[in-house]
């Protein structure tokens, strides 16, 4: 049982929805970023999604693209991202951390070596945007074998015929992408998302978490109410980018988490 499985088991017992926060590792620098991540659990975050910066984030909107650029310009690397996780784990052994990013930095490291290092650092799951089920042998299957969850994205274009293929090697939870588009773009609507989540839940026992296009505490509440939880990324990243101190960003995160937890 990974930290992710344990977290969902605990949430299920209290009937609480999960709130997942995305932040970019090393944005704008390692110290600020670590300070923010360390504060997330107290702000009500159930699962931390930690972005691994990449030069060519094809599924991301401007907000997260710029965050990645800031991180890279600040000298962020895969090693430093792993180190950040280790330092977080010194004070928190229960909050799950999912690494979200693109395949090339991992491929470049070497899959086996990466998995060993990620596991040792305290990462619990992976969301790798450019690895669809068709490429499962690359990382998904080795990751599961190494005891890491591989969390798959399901999208509005994933039809009923394709859904079983998407769910087949997924573990931890299913990440439903609420819109066709990139992160931080259009707003997700609970009326559109609800039936889609129901469709996925009918095909799996895994929790379904919804992300993309959720920007406010109200949206957090309304989307979480039709799923097992929700993810907010760009809205948090923009708060940080606007130059607000970490404490204020965490206050904003708390309002989002409270929204989801009210649902």
């Amino acid at each position: 049982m990974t930290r992710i499985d344990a977290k969902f088991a605990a949430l299920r017992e209290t009937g609480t929805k999960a709130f997942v926060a995305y932040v970019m590792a090393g944005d704008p620098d390692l110290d600020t970023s670590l300070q923010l991540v360390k504060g997330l659990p107290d702000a009500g975050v159930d699962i931390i999604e930690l972005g691994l910066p990449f030069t060519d984030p094809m599924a991301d909107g401007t907000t997260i693209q710029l965050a990645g650029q800031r991180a890279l310009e600040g000298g962020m690397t895969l090693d430093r991202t792993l180190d950040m996780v280790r330092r977080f784990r010194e004070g928190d052994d229960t909050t799950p951390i999912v690494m979200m990013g693109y395949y090339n930095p991992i491929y470049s490291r070497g899959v086996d070596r990466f998995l060993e290092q990620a596991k040792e650092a305290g990462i619990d799951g992976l969301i790798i945007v450019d690895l669809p089920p068709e490429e499962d042998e690359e990382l998904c299957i080795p990751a599961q074998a190494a005891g890491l969850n591989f969390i798959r994205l399901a999208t509005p274009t994933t039809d009923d015929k394709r859904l079983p293929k998407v769910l087949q090697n997924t573990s931890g939870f299913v990440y439903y992408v609420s819109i066709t588009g990139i992160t931080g773009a259009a707003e997700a609507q609970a009326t559109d998302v609800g039936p889609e989540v129901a469709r996925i839940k009918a095909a799996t026992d895994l929790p379904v978490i919804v992300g993309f296009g959720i920007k406010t505490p109200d949206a957090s509440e309304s989307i979480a109410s039709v799923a097992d939880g929700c993810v907010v990324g760009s809205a948090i990243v923009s708060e940080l980018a606007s130059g607000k101190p970490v404490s204020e960003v965490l206050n904003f995160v708390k309002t989002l988490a409270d929204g989801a937890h009210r649902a």
Partner: protein
Amino acid sequence: MNDLFNSFMTGPDEKGRFGIFGGRFVSETLMPLILELEEQYERAKTDDSFWAEMEFLWKHYVGRPSPLYFAERLTEHLGGAKVYMKRDELNHTGAHKINNVLGQIILARRMGKTRIIAETGAGQHGVATATVCAKFGLKCVVYMGAHDVERQQPNVFRMKLLGAEVVPVTSGRGTLKDAMNDALRDWVTNVRDTFYCIGTVAGPHPYPAMVRDFQSIIGKEAKEQMLEAEGRLPDTIIAAIGGGSNAMGLFYPFLDDKEVEIIGVEAGGKGVNAKMEHCASLTGGRPGVLHGNRTYLLQDDDGQILEGYSISAGLDYPGIGPEHSWLHDIGRAQYVAITDKEALEAFQLCCATEGIIPALEPSHALAHVMKIAPDLPKDHIICMNMCGRGDKDIYSVARHLGIDMGEEGR
């Protein structure tokens, strides 16, 4: 005779791989679209009416077949091998790009898509796409790096005249790779009505194979024309490579003719050095995953993609088509790098000896011809792909030669 079990022409496999290269590294949102494209392309490939439409337009709209031309004065000047040029620069829009665009747009129309998006570097693929979209009355949006928009104004204006919307891309560093990122972001947002017309033999499967098939008309014609002119196949075929579509188009029909030597020429920029002032992915890169496929990439130790550099905006891409990566690794083709300086010399020599102003891209191929031809016997036949004309490049050539063209040269 070709040995069926030892053919180089059977790739990609059902997973879209050429050896370890290629594949389908895209987000889940795009995956169903790519599978649909593959299905529709497979259907079109065996449909005579699809090819009949292509052939009609190739002939009457593009002006195919393009001539195979014996460059007599250049041959004399070099004093060795016989040099032939496959004149794809004479195509409508001035480059080989339109061969592929026609195929993809005909396919897009069959699929009921009404909006076409494309990425472009130098603007040749953008112009070709805008052209064919104008012909068929389709909406066209072209993503172009802001930096390239600045240095390729004539092509930007051409695209606008042709009715296309040109979107300057400021994400990343505003070059071709960023334009491709933004085109993919557009596609993931507009999944229902939009067709992504990729300009080179890269991207997720089926693009590398599909674009190669559409460009193979170059090699097919060259083979027939060479048999007619010389009664035999060439000894060496040479083409320039950015993403590698003109090269794949020339090479593919010759892959199983094992007596034919195949040479791809990458952009060596200021030299294949540690500062990465070049775009020679095979010479100076290593395998990685970007833009939907695994291939050789310019990248740092941490797997972050590096910007390439070349005098030629059309070669300015940190990757290369996956089939080239495979041909490189198995040794069927040889890949070399040519510097800006060498390409500029070839550009000028071609103008002066043949009365042909070549684009900077094929000037790289020509520069390699200049290197090897003098030492080869007079009965050695070289066929190089003159894949584009140089009108678009005269301003940047003037700049590099230190000639002031005033306002117009900006």
